[in-house]
């Protein structure tokens, strides 16, 4: 076990020295102040700055979110209003249309009635006229028939005369 010979080991230290203590203390304090000045200070500064930045960003986001929500509410309200208005417009237009249709229908109905009546009265008039004409014709005819019948019953002489008259008449009319 020669390699375990304590003399070959590289460890340990020799005794307490006041100088070491003093030096360690001094070194640590110097290190502490140097690090505070050159490392921890700036690092914590930037960490704080980032923290503030993030806080600001979050606050800003919160604010803009609220604003957006307000806008959205406003828009929804406006949309609802517009929809209501449109509904009312459509309603009124429908009513107006119905009314107009009703009016047109009424007018057409009246017109039809009027036309029918006019046609009826025309027909009546025509009929009367026809009847009148017929009556006249009948009267004329009956007179002619009657006269012919009368003529037939005439005597020879008067018959002759009558024929002559006719002939004459005919001749004249030619």
């Amino acid at each position, binding site marked *: 076990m020669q390699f375990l010979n304590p*003399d*070959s080991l590289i460890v340990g*230290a020799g005794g307490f*020295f006041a100088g070491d203590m003093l030096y360690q203390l001094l070194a*640590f304090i110097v290190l502490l102040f*140097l690090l505070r000045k050159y490392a*921890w200070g700036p690092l914590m500064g930037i960490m704080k700055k980032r923290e503030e930045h993030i806080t600001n960003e979050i606050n800003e986001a919160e604010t803009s979110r609220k604003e957006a929500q307000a806008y959205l509410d406003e828009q929804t309200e406006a949309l609802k209003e517009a929809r209501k208005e449109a509904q009312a417009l459509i309603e009124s237009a429908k009513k107006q249309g119905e009314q107009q249709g009703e009016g047109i229908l009424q007018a057409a109905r009246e017109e039809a009635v009027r036309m029918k009546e006019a046609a009826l009265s025309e027909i009546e008039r025509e009929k009367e006229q026809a009847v009148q004409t017929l009556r006249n014709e009948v009267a004329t005819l009956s007179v002619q028939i009657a006269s012919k019948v009368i003529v037939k019953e005439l005597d020879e002489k008067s018959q002759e005369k009558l024929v002559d008259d006719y002939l004459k008449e005919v001749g004249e009319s030619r």
Partner: protein
Amino acid sequence: MKELNHEAPTFHLFGLTFNTSNVMMITIASIIVFIIAVLGSRSLQMRPTGMQNFMEWLIDFVKGIINSTMDWKTGERFLTLGLTIIMYIFVSNMLGLPFAIAIDHELWWKSPTADPTITLTLAVMVVVLTHFYAIKVKGAKSYGSDFFKPMKFMFPLKIIEEFANTLTLGLRLYGNIYAGEVLLALLAGAGAAGIFSGILTFVPMLVWQGFSVFVGTIQAFIFTMLTMVYMAHKVSDEH
């Protein structure tokens, strides 16, 4: 344990003795921490990338540690302390892992935290800071009366507690890192003995180094966590 130790290189200044290797490793660890931190916060952006992400993650991590022990209003001032402690101790723990350098039986390159002097200094500093902040935050009267709560006879125990805290905080870190380096040195020594043992120790070496990375990370976390726990114990009002 003396036979496990190499000699420590020393020098004297202002009537004080310094362990040269400790001084060097403390400086190196501090410089590495400083470089990492400055690289991580060199070009800061609102949308972080690369190193900045890592540094911000570290800040959030330490913030989490503080938040789990006290409320953020009192804990905020300890953030830089916690960050510096966790980074310094982590880097220190890692320094001794890849290799150790000894010149003429004098150990030069090692983890500074593998020395109880260093870890106890850090622990004492932390405990003194807890007392300092306790007075600063709560006032001297409230701080003093805390030693007699919940009952008067607890006073000696409270005093012992302070020393116990300091010792356990420092020695826990030292013990873990030192043990890790001892075993690494053992394995390295064994591996260097021959080709066969070199092959044989390669896998355990790999495993132990991985485990030491884990332990070093955990210890850095624990040291920071306990710092904040002691701090909260002193500073917050419930106790």
